[in-house]
């Protein structure tokens, strides 16, 4: 994909996108007006649980949280709300790859739960997410048979890779890293199928961010080349082979090379700090902010799939904020303690 498209090509793409996504964007525009604003979020933080629920009764969440008294009611209500949001997404984006792009993370979450079940033999039924595009039972059957079966054709390759990773004596942590890698690569493939330049860029940025985290953590734990081979995803802007070489190289060369990349600014603190833990915490925050910055870039793409995706991601963030806030209140935590638990990056995402 070219970095800079000729103006005419870009303009033609815009003209083609409007008839394809215009209706969906129109519907999303109305739903955007119901997102919780900062004032409402701050009010929620201040009030006790019952009053917070009363505040939420005036919003889209009212119907879902009505009569909620215990944690499971809140959890169920918020999940139901998200299910309906994804239902809206399926409805407005029929015939596009947008719902698949968004639901993919839940499919891979379910796949990880299946892996967990295999390794721990524990009860994991509660951990499955109902937001994936693939039915959990179908996935279970295919997973147990180690082939794609009824799953979409692109899962055949994924299942084969997993089968190789799941050889007896394999390390569960490495299998987990392989699943993460497969997720990032598959999401990039879906973005390419959707032919959205922004989604491709966003997926690539996510791959780079994940790869950099793996390298920095891997060096801390003194991992071998095999670990990087299994965990590093391809398709990012930073070349995978070069990253593997760098991961095994001296600290000076690694620092010099990474600082010269587009991620240099956010890596500066991490690479120059003496405390590894403090460095990794600031790294997580830096990456979160970087990805949110990318998401806020979607605001400018007024009439494409980006606006729809941004809406769904903002809703997911909102639900995460509400879950932490309401659960905190149910457990009697002070507003200040709850606020500390809310990621500042998440709060920034609130409109």
């Amino acid at each position, binding site marked *: 994909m070219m970095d800079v498209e000729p103006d005419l090509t870009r303009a033609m793409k*815009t*003209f083609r996108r*409007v*008839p394809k996504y*215009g*209706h*969906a*964007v*129109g*519907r*999303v*525009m*109305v*739903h*955007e*007006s119901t997102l919780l604003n900062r004032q409402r979020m701050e009010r929620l933080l201040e009030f006790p649980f019952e009053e917070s629920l009363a505040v939420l009764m005036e919003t889209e969440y009212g119907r879902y949280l009505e009569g909620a008294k215990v944690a499971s009611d809140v959890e169920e209500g918020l999940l139901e709300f998200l299910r309906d949001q994804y239902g809206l997404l399926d409805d*407005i984006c029929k015939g596009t790859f947008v719902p698949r792009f968004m639901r993919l993370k839940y499919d891979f979450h379910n796949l990880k739960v299946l892996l967990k079940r295999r390794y721990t033999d524990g009860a994991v039924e509660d951990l499955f997410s109902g937001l994936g595009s693939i039915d959990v039972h179908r996935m279970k059957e295919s997973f147990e048979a180690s082939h794609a079966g009824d799953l979409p054709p692109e899962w055949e390759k994924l299942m084969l890779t997993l089968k190789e990773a799941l050889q007896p004596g394999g390390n569960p942590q490495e299998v987990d890293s392989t699943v993460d890698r497969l997720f990032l690569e598959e999401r990039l493939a879906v973005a390419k199928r959707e032919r959205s330049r922004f989604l491709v860029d966003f997926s690539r940025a996510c791959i780079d961010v994940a790869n950099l985290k793996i390298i920095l953590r891997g060096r801390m734990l003194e991992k071998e080349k095999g670990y990087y081979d299994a965990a590093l995803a391809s398709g990012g802007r930073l070349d995978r082979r070069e990253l593997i070489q760098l991961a095994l190289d001296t600290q000076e060369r690694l620092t010099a090379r990474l600082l010269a990349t587009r991620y240099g600014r956010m890596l500066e603190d991490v690479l120059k700090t003496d405390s590894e833990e403090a460095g990794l915490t600031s790294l997580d925050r830096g990456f979160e902010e970087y990805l949110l910055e990318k998401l806020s870039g979607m605001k400018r793409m*007024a*009439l494409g799939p980006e606006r729809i995706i941004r809406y769904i991601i903002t809703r997911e963030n909102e639900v995460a904020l509400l879950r932490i806030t309401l659960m905190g209140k149910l457990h009697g935590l002070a507003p200040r303690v709850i606020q500390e638990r809310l990621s500042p990056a998440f709060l920034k995402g609130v409109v």
Partner: protein
Amino acid sequence: MLAAVQVSKEITQAATWGGLTGFQWAIFGAATAFIGGGMGSAIGITYVSNVASGILVEDPDKFGSMLPLLAIPGTQGIYGLITAILVTIFFNLSELSGFSGLLVFFACLPVAFVCCVSAIYQGLTAASAAGMVARRTEELGKAMVLPALVETYAVFSLILTIYLFTRIPK
């Protein structure tokens, strides 16, 4: 020198230019102006309608506020129509020389091209502005300003075309 003036006079007064009569050139210009404006308006309205239909599915009460935004890219089609009619009013087509007919054709081009392109972009701008109205109906006034700015250039093109008509020898 005299011969050159004579040749120039013969060219401007010849009944045909490039194989077409003045009447044919003028009609060609009028049709081009309308096709450009009409096509642009149709595409522009389609864009804003796509978005507006989505908004109206969720909130049918917004129909009244959406209507001006839906209609605004349609004005370029009207400018094309006005230009086409003005060609027949300004000029006596049956007596128009080939050269004057050619000038009429060129004078119609600003409306044909500027209206076509501006209507398409106005449709995109109006579709974005519809988002403002979807969020707050009272923002309609501000939302209308954005596509209205695009309209300015369509109006300028119509003014230029009419001015050029007045300068063409009849």
